[in-house]
């Protein structure tokens, strides 16, 4: 066999081309996240069906009106929209990122020149799409099957928009931060789910918030879900219902402040504590 010197030309290093910007890697990550999400059929079903099933159960069990002309379904829809936002942001990210840290996905990504922000933007894009679809499903089902009235004016929908976006932001960043708490990918679901469930009970999702014991309310008021639910009530309940809130008003200012505070606090926590490798591997 003869040896050629054809390889020597390849050893000269090419000129270093500029690194790709953030846009392409981030879009590519969004596409990957959506593919992965929609291919986990059980996860898709659970995410979209859970709020609808809960709406069906609670709407049927509590068939009396909670106030003249106000059905429990109407009250409950607001809470379920808030819950749905928390599920797709906080719960799904806290669990999936813990699993991705455990199975080496994160380590593989951080070993490439991917801008680290692209990973998080991928998650944000996924949460926005999935959250949007989920809320839309819930509203359509509520309006068609459970006779829930949707607001007919622009004002409440503006409120809906900012509460949903701030809620998604707070839930997304808290979820990313909380993903470091479970010790392994396997335990992630068991660690995260009870946190979400307890918050749902304490935040007045399943029961009328103002009828909960005061100690429970004061704990719930520290967390975003209570404020998201209250913000959503201001969208889906008539203006007169504000009087039945604990303070007698919707507290939009406080809602915005708490959600922004959680977003910024969780961001700081993410920046300081986020790990790309397992604890036993760094």
């Amino acid at each position, binding site marked *: 066999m003869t040896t050629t010197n054809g*390889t020597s030309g*390849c*050893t*000269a*290093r*090419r000129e*270093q*081309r*500029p*690194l*790709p910007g953030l846009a*392409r*890697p981030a*879009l*590519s*990550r969004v*596409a*990957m996240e959506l*593919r*992965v999400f929609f*291919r*986990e059929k059980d996860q898709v079903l659970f995410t979209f069906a859970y709020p609808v099933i809960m709406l069906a159960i609670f709407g049927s069990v509590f068939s009396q009106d909670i106030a003249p002309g106000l059905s429990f379904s109407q009250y409950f829809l607001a809470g379920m929209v808030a819950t749905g936002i928390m599920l797709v942001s906080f719960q799904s990210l806290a669990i999936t990122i813990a699993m*991705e840290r455990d*199975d*080496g*996905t994160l*380590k*593989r990504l951080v*070993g*490439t*020149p*991917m*801008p680290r922000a*692209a990973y998080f933007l991928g998650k944000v894009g996924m949460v926005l799409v999935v959250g949007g679809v989920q809320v839309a499903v819930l509203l359509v089902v509520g309006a068609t099957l459970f006779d829930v009235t949707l607001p007919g004016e622009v004002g409440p929908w503006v409120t809906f928009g900012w509460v949903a976006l701030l809620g998604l932001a707070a839930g997304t960043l808290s979820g990313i931060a909380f993903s470091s708490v479970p010790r392994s990918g396997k335990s992630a679901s068991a660690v995260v789910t009870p946190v979400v469930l307890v918050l749902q009970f304490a935040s007045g999702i399943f029961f009328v918030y103002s009828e909960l014991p005061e100690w429970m309310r004061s704990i719930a008021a520290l967390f975003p879900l209570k404020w998201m639910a209250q913000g959503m009530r201001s969208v889906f309940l008539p203006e007169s219902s504000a009087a039945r809130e604990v303070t007698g008003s919707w507290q939009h200012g406080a809602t915005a402040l708490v959600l922004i505070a959680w977003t910024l606090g969780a961001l700081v926590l993410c920046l300081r504590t986020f790990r790309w*490798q397992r604890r036993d*591997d*760094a």
Partner: protein
Amino acid sequence: MTVRGLRKDYAGAAAVDGIDLDVAPGEVFALLGPNGAGKTTTVEILEGFRDRNGGDVRVLGHDPAHPTRAWRSRIGIVLQTPRDQGEVTVEELVGSFATFYPDPRDPVEVLQTVGLGEKRGTRTRHLSGGQRRRLDVALGILGRPELLFLDEPTTGFDPEARRSFWNLVETLSAEGTTILLTTHYLDEAERLADRVAVIVRGRVVALDTPERLGGRDAADAVVRWVEGGSVRSTSTRTPTALVGELSARLGGEVSELQVLRPTLEDTYLRLIEEQR
């Protein structure tokens, strides 16, 4: 790549205890050593995955304790993570990773190169162990790395897959890629590596070409043959002379003649044994 006095402690005990290495551009360098000797720790420090407790390390002129995107784009890492990203297809995964690099290879070409051209549309969790490993390699070489880390790349391969993997490594090496290989297979190191370092308990105990490692080339050869129905063997420094002598004495062909030199495996096992 230069490494001077590299140290890494875990819980007070030194896992890497003062390692010096130099790997030249274009070289294929193999790290050998028993499990727990500090190979993976060393490699992960060089890859920028772990910090170190001491020593001076330069990889492509850069300290891997502070990895930058530009530096990452010049190295390729073949990880041992067999379970991640199970729900995406081979082509989707490689296509997505290609967007991270300044000058990536064509994803389809890379998959052809590693022999996964037929598996492009398969979800990664349906790949066999060997196919999964080749996908890891595809991701490692996607960005045209100047330096490629291969950590036990052929563990679990069948002999045929291993041969084709070796050919791939030789092609990459011929293209000028520097390769740092860890392996448990001595035949793999012998076939691929220009130089070999043996690490035992966090220290380099031998470093040379595979042919000369541990004085292998200077060791006595054993000549073995069959004469008068029985096996004879002699240990000698001059096997050629002995074979000539035998041939003359026995009239031409010597029955079942063998000239045996210590294999890399013999040498390696002796080096490990000496450290106990």
